[in-house]
């Protein structure tokens, strides 16, 4: 952790800020949210890493998809994701967003999250322990350092692919009602 490295911080303040100030969308997407209260409170204390839950997607830059994603939740997830300011990161938490997990045969959940949203990292397990979130955060730091987290850029580049998949499960009306995601400012 080079958080206190002043020379590096002044050289690239953008990266310094992005790395050590990850604000998480406070949004219960599934049963995995049960692991978040111990993570952010006194037992595990995520705030020492700069990770802080925020109340609205507009203020956040890290989206934890905690647990299975039902079709109804997917709508809310997509709306919230498109409201977050760039650069933003998505981490899928638990085995359900990876391949459906326990709900693989359910008629009402989606099985592969990365067909509908760009996912920057996965935390496997059912449920992953709070320590796994910290491992994910440190991995995310390394990826931000190397410039490897480009989920939001991929989303803008391949918007047709994502919209097509979203339309398949959410229907035509949802796609027509949602505006095009904003493009990167110059």
């Amino acid at each position: 952790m080079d958080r206190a490295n002043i020379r590096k911080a002044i050289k690239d303040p953008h990266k310094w800020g992005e790395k050590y100030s990850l604000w998480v969308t406070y949004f219960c997407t599934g049963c995995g949210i049960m692991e978040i209260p111990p993570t952010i409170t006194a037992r595990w204390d995520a705030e020492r890493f700069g990770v802080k839950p925020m109340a609205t997607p507009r203020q956040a830059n890290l989206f934890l998809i905690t647990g299975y994603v039902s079709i109804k939740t997917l709508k809310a997830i997509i709306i919230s994701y498109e409201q977050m300011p760039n650069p933003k990161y998505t981490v899928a938490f638990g085995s359900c967003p990876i391949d459906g997990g326990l709900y693989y045969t359910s008629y009402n959940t989606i099985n592969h999250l990365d067909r509908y949203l760009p996912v920057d990292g996965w935390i496997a397990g059912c449920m992953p322990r709070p320590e796994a979130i910290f491992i994910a955060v440190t991995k995310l730091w390394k990826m931000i350092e190397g410039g490897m987290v480009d989920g939001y850029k991929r989303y803008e580049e391949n918007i047709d692919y994502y919209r097509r998949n979203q339309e398949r499960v959410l229907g035509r009306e949802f796609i027509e009602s949602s505006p095009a995601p904003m493009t990167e400012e110059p």
Partner: protein
Amino acid sequence: MSTFMRVVWIVTLPVIALLISVLFLGLFRKITARIQRRYGPPVYQPVIDLTKLLTQHSNISHGVMFDMGLIIALAGSVVTVLLIPAGGIHPLSSSGDLLVIIYVMLIPVLGMALAAGDSGNPNASLGVSRKLILGLGYEVPFLLVLLTVMTHGETTSLVNVVQMQADSILSWGVFRFPLSAIATFLILPVMLGIHPFDIVGAPQEISSGPQVEFGGKYLALATIEQALQLFIVIALFVDLFLGGAANLGTFFLKMLGVFLIGIFIGAVYPRFRIDQALRYCWKWPTLFALAGLILVMIIGG
């Protein structure tokens, strides 16, 4: 004070105030964490957060007032900082500045209300209405306290109020009108907006209230504005009751003392409802302030 020095201080004082208040924000998070037996973020965490917010791409604006409201709020805060004597530095103060402060302190609230109102989010409107109700609550005892101070010193200048307390510790406001000092201390967490009175931006109830639609640079400006509010309220308390200070160092130490007590209260309390807060404001602080005013009027200066 020469004109040149005045201009220099007008430029530097807001920056100093900002540095102090950002340090306070960091201390607030660290000390709260230690009280709750957490390790907590580093003290410079707000600097990291502000850096991130300022470099983020803001993806939406909800209209002209959404942009301008924040600027109005920030400008109001900066002007208020310039009006309050901080350790012998008072670039904008003149004879009636205590009266001006009462009015100027409302501009940041109105600016935030305009910006939040233009976003059209119901949570933002809820937050604004809560802020105005809370303002109604603490303005009553606060105005009574200011009236006591003005009656006692027969002056409307904050610089004169500070000068009157310069002789010894016993001439500090807290010993001259203790009842008013108690009243102000009781409404201090309300004015600072910390626990148990962080009703306005309650994240779990109304999604951080007026700031619900702010992201990126907007949130950075809102955070800076809030940090300056922290400075204004504590500096006003130090000037009114703790004798101000002759230099910036002593002033900072006195502010730190007041702020630490505020943290200790804030870290252990949950949140009041808005009606409980209003009832609290109009009960004990108002009673103490009124008693202090009557006492000063009977005994005289």
